[in-house]
């Protein structure tokens, strides 16, 4: 591995941001409307499995991606039902959803595929002209479709959230559900929508691991990435620019750790692997004194005042 250059590090850093971006942007939709979905990691695992299985069986990456989106949507709907209609405690029910996804994806994998195999995932697409720019082009414009999609999602969701009536409703429902309700906005419908969008994006985040980045599936493939994605939403202060910064920061840390291992730098690999989790805790603690507040209604079921 002598050809592992700085450009390769940054390029893989950009690529590794893909799952973080999809999952945290999805989670951000839910949280802005007041729903904390902690089941992201479980949905990612199910999405990763669905995409992998479908791709192995049909040979079509597009169908695989679609399957991940559908599975993610179903699990998102389930989470919406639990948290909006049943008004369940969101933290614990998310953990339940995680355990379900963790067990179910392992069960299905063992029952339907059985052994670790690989697929030919989404290949890099060289963007004409741009990919020939030295350094910048090599880093940014030789990625796979899902990576481009993840970065394109940042401005798209910014537009939806801040420039459309729907986005206004989402944010209103998260800040002041009583007020939104009195203006005729259906709090429940908005929350169902955002949590389902979150589910779809989490499913795609899983697919980006199993059919674009790693091109394998195994039990517990995500190793807590979904939880880091939730932490990224706090880190980003519920703003898309913050999410983007956070996702790139984390993926660069991952890339550097890969690089250190390839170079045989003498730190035990276990400590290198620990870094993202330690940073997550430190970052969350460092944000304590910041003057950004979570959506006011986050993690609070909406109950129409009946007197």
């Amino acid at each position, binding site marked *: 591995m002598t050809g592992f250059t700085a450009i390769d590090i940054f390029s893989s850093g950009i690529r590794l941001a893909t799952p973080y971006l999809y999952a945290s942007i999805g989670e951000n939709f839910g949280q802005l409307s007041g729903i904390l979905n902690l089941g992201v990691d479980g949905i990612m695992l199910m999405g990763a499995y669905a995409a992998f299985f479908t791709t192995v069986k049909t040979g079509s990456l597009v169908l695989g991606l679609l399957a991940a989106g559908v599975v993610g949507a179903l699990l998102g709907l389930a989470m919406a039902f639990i948290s909006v209609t049943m008004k*369940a405690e969101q933290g614990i029910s998310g*953990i339940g959803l995680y355990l379900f996804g*963790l067990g179910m994806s392992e069960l299905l994998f063992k029952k339907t595929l059985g052994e670790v195999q690989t697929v030919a995932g989404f290949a890099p697409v060289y963007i004409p002209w741009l990919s020939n720019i030295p350094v910048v082009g090599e880093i940014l414009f030789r990625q796979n479709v899902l990576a481009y999609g993840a970065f394109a999602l940042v401005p798209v969701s910014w537009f939806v959230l801040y420039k459309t009536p729907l986005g206004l409703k989402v944010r209103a429902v998260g800040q002041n559900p009583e007020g939104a309700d009195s203006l005729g906005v259906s709090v429940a419908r908005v929350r169902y929508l955002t949590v389902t969008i979150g589910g779809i994006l989490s499913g795609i985040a899983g697919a980006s691991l199993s059919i674009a980045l790693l091109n394998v599936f195994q039990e517990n493939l995500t190793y807590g990435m979904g939880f880091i994605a939730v932490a990224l939403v706090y880190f980003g202060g519920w703003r898309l620019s913050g999410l983007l910064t956070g996702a790139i920061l984390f993926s660069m840390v991952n890339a550097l750790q890969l690089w250190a291992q390839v170079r045989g730098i003498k730190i035990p690999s276990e400590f290198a692997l620990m870094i993202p989790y330690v940073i997550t805790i430190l970052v969350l603690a460092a944000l304590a004194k910041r003057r950004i507040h979570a959506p006011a209604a986050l993690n609070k079921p909406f109950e129409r005042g009946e007197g």
Partner: protein
Amino acid sequence: MKEMDQRIVRVLASLTPVGAFLLAILIGAVMLVIFGANPLMAFRALVSGAFGNMNALADTLVKATPLLFVGLGICIAFRGGVLNIGGEGQLVVGALSAALICLNFPNWPGWALIMAALLGGLFAGAIYGGIAGFLKAYFNVNEILSTIMLNYIAVFGMNYLLRGPLIDPMQIKLGSFIPETARFPRATDLPRLVPTRLHLGVGIAILFAVLVYILLWRTTIGFRIRMVGKNIRAALGAGINVKGYMVLGLLLAGSLAGLGGAVEVLGVNHRMFTDGSAFGFTGSAGFNGIVAALFGQLHPVGTIPASIMLGALLTGANQMQRVVQVPSALVGALNGLIVVFVVGSEILRLRQVRRVDRTLRVASTPLSEEEKR
């Protein structure tokens, strides 16, 4: 009559977890059918694998033990309004510190070494849970996220220790490098209760269930923990050190899980090992303990039968896997569903209780002037 009604409501309320369990089992049966397995055969294998003979029963109780330790901690934490998802990591650090003590002081008398190892596990778990509590109380860090991150950190720490400084010298000599410690001195084996794998740890866990009950409902500290969990404003108003009690809740939860890890390693494995993830050692007890506590309605005594039931499910799943060829991961998925159903049905329960309360109140209070008109 009134008391009668309330009693009926309470009985119905305590049955909701059972309903949640049955619903999960039903879904499990449907999945078995989809996989082409006979659900009746599968469940028969599961039950006989869990209760079929003395050994099976003993294994069920042994499996239930770490669940009970973690679950008891969850009872304290959840009652105190803090969510401890860090059972996995706390079990691991508890077991690791027990291992360190057993391997470093092999010449101590057995009972002293056992006591030291158990206390070591308890303290390690307390520190590990306490970190999350401290971060929540003073830095406003969501404890669910911090405890989950601490789980992964504990696993990597364990892998480092077991592949490096703590590895069994025999593994180096043989060149096989299996990441595990040497076997602990035999004097540290927890006594077996009957000629099965059942060990004293089961008794310790039940003893602690009683202690946790006394702590929560018979002491001022317990009252304050529950008050902070129930109504933080009232607790603040009453001058309770809310932040301190948040830390305490997670610290106690961590200490029980840490003790559970130490008991597990002294009672079952007699050495620490890793399969690279936490599951190899914990068997997901850190998560399943949450299921047990929720199932036991966050009551320490209720958590005992809940742990045994889940222990049976986990033990029986292995037999089921052999007989009908359905991976035991099925039980993991069903446990997730049980959590969702129990937490989700809470609203039904509350609604029902509230409705009856209201009718009772209306029936028992004289009409006000306004209502008379």
